[in-house]
């Protein structure tokens, strides 16, 4: 009786602590094709910078930004699909950096998904035919995490590889990125 009261209290505490955890940890290994098709329906604004995410994405609880498994999958895809060739570990190279938290097309998932799927001017190729819709969303969630100003608890830890920058679950991007004396990326951005 007494023990039950105590343990219920504690269980309630843990429940509160883990309230978001439930969804953050779920591992969905198979995305139903109709849902994938619905996720593909990204409605971009005419300037191709921002737009509304598909209703189904919101209804699912934004799994690609909050779910640890999806974010980790995104990190693997980042390596498998050679993103590092142009974007480095987020510090940029031929392509723009992600670490500085400065987004040429805005930080919304819709923009990032669209960038990956359809490509962008100045060299970003479309991955529409290389990745599935689910993979594109997973990768977009991860890419968004790289430049986040406050680390998500669901963000991936470091990789078992040479370390070039602190892991995604550590300090915010702004602290890790030294833009130097020149102003931020005047050359990046949408076509004028």
């Amino acid at each position, binding site marked *: 009786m007494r023990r039950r009261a105590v343990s219920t209290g504690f269980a309630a505490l843990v429940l509160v602590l883990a309230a978001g955890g439930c969804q953050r940890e779920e591992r969905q290994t198979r995305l139903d094709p109709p849902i994938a098709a619905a996720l593909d329906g990204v409605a971009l604004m005419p300037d191709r910078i921002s737009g509304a995410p598909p209703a189904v994405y919101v209804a699912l609880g934004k799994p690609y930004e909050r779910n640890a498994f999806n974010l980790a999958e995104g990190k693997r895809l980042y390596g498998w699909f050679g993103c590092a060739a142009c974007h480095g570990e987020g510090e940029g190279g031929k392509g723009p950096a992600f670490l500085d938290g400065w987004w040429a097309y805005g930080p919304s998932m819709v923009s990032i998904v669209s960038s990956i799927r359809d490509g962008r001017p100045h060299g970003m190729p479309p991955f529409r035919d290389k990745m599935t819709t689910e993979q594109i969303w997973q990768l977009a969630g991860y890419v968004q995490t790289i430049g986040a100003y406050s680390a998500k608890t669901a963000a991936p830890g*470091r*990789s078992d590889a040479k370390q070039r920058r602190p*892991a995604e679950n550590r300090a915010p991007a702004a602290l890790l990125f030294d833009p130097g004396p020149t102003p931020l990326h005047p050359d990046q951005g949408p076509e004028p």
Partner: protein
Amino acid sequence: MTQDHDAGTRDHQVDRTMLEARLAKTWRTDPGLWGALATVDHKIIGRRYIVTAFVFLALGGVLAMLMRLQLAGPEARIIGPDRYNQIFTMHGTTMMFLFAVPVMEAVAVYLVPLMIGTRNIAFPRLNAFSYWMFLFGGLLLWVAFALDMGPDVGWFAYVPLSGPQFSAGKRADIWAQMITFTEVAALAVAVEIVVTVFKQRAPGMSLDRVPLFVWAMLVTSFLVIIAMPAVMVASTMLILDRLVGTHFFNPAEGGDVLLWQHLFWFFGHPEVYIIFLPAVGMVSTMVATFARRPVFGYLALVMAMVATGILAFGLWVHHMFVTGLPRLGESFFTASSMAIAVPAGIQIFCWIATLWSGTPRFATPLLWVVAFIVTFVIGGLTGVMVASVPFDTQVHDTYFVVAHFHYVLIGGAVFPLLGAVTYWFPKFTGRMMSERLGTWSFWLIVVGFNLTFFPMHILGFQGMPRRIYTYQPDLPWHGLNLFVSLCAVMLVAGFVLFAVNVVRSLRCGVPAGDNPWDAPTLEWATSSPPPPYNFAHIPVVGGSNPLWESPEKLPVASGLCLDRRELIVSSVVEAQPEARESSPQNSVWPFFAAIATSVMLIGSIFTPWAVVWGAVPVFVTLVGWFWPKGTPEDAA
């Protein structure tokens, strides 16, 4: 400094009724929730510990049945791989960290003070703290499991699979932090038992008169003290790797994945003996009582336990025979692993000799002892097999090993434990367990166990690896797997019947009296269940079997105060009385301290700063715990 309290009432100044009333008042546990949270009575805490551990056994058993359900047929889709991996991880973790080790320590928390004739365990508040930590650690693990964030990396959590790259989210962190909870709890109990056995033995109970269960717990406690820091270091490294990006296990930055295995098994192998040695102590105790003679080879048994304890730290590499370590080193570990057969053999031979020359009485506890010997010898012999490097390369990580360690852990530890529960049940509750139900559950469990686990040896030879959530229909495993799953039902039925027996006997068992088995050790000298103060007078011991040596009268010491919690501190070897020491009053602070520590530990899964801000409440509660309250117990 004041001698005021020395003027208080002494036990020889009042009559028996008054004595018992005064002691009961001094040592009481207050009724109600507050009293329950504040109690430091080792019997109440021990009982809680035992019950909680058995609840975890039941939960772990449910998981085992879920696995058997899934494995009953090939390519079954009852449980998906993600859940299955959580289930087998939870099963192993629960059984090892939340059942086997705690239950043995729990029985010791209850029995050791009684067996050595003292009134409470040393550091009783630490004891209360230990229980809460254990409970909160277990809840952390199981609540996480219920939320689909249970660990899924195996109870051994090998890196890199459990590391930051391959284990997304907090699942592995929860496992690693649960380790911290349970190890803190286990280490606390180990310290208490070592100090209790060293310093609180009844006058005259020199080391060569200490009951064998107490010896077993002493050796076990030292094993805990030396083995558990390794796994705490390892799990801390894992959390650091995952949370703040250290590189202990990252080969690309100079780390090494085998470091984890070395640290884990340096703890993990002694862990087996941490579970097994208490069982050995229980068997030695029960053999003596039911053969009605002192156990044969007391000194040999003590030395065998000590030798097991020492050898336990030289065997860990036999869990790593297929990792590609140098062959010569591996051969050394083959030799040392085989050597453990010698102390194990000595123990078996001594028990058989005791039975041979005694007059066995076939009550349920003795049945369990016999089943233990027959089953454990199989587990020990398969242990000798896996100690051989070439043999191990074929059976390592197969169902052969699953069979082996279930023979060792169930046959070697759970059978004696069930016997011990039956044996000490009258002391715990004042009532006997039913012999009829006991015999039924005995046969169901023993037969069910062997039918369930023996075929797994064969599955291992047939190439069935461990930790697979399913297997393909073209493999020749499904017949035996189905058989095993069906027999597991029998095993479970036995356990259910055992539980029914416990519940029924609690309510309407035959009243037991002080010493229903005519046993020789001190716990049977007091009433059943024992009063809060254990003994109205502290016994004085003149031999190894006090109740057989003097069946009518119990020699006792007088002169202790009645208005403070007082017990005897005695010298380590000879148990000469040194002081009338006080034992701490009830306090709710250990409970608060456990809550504060839990908040800190769980917080540190999510942010390293939790260690900083979480330390503040821990500090506050500890000050509350240790600050003198001006009770008579503070007098010196």
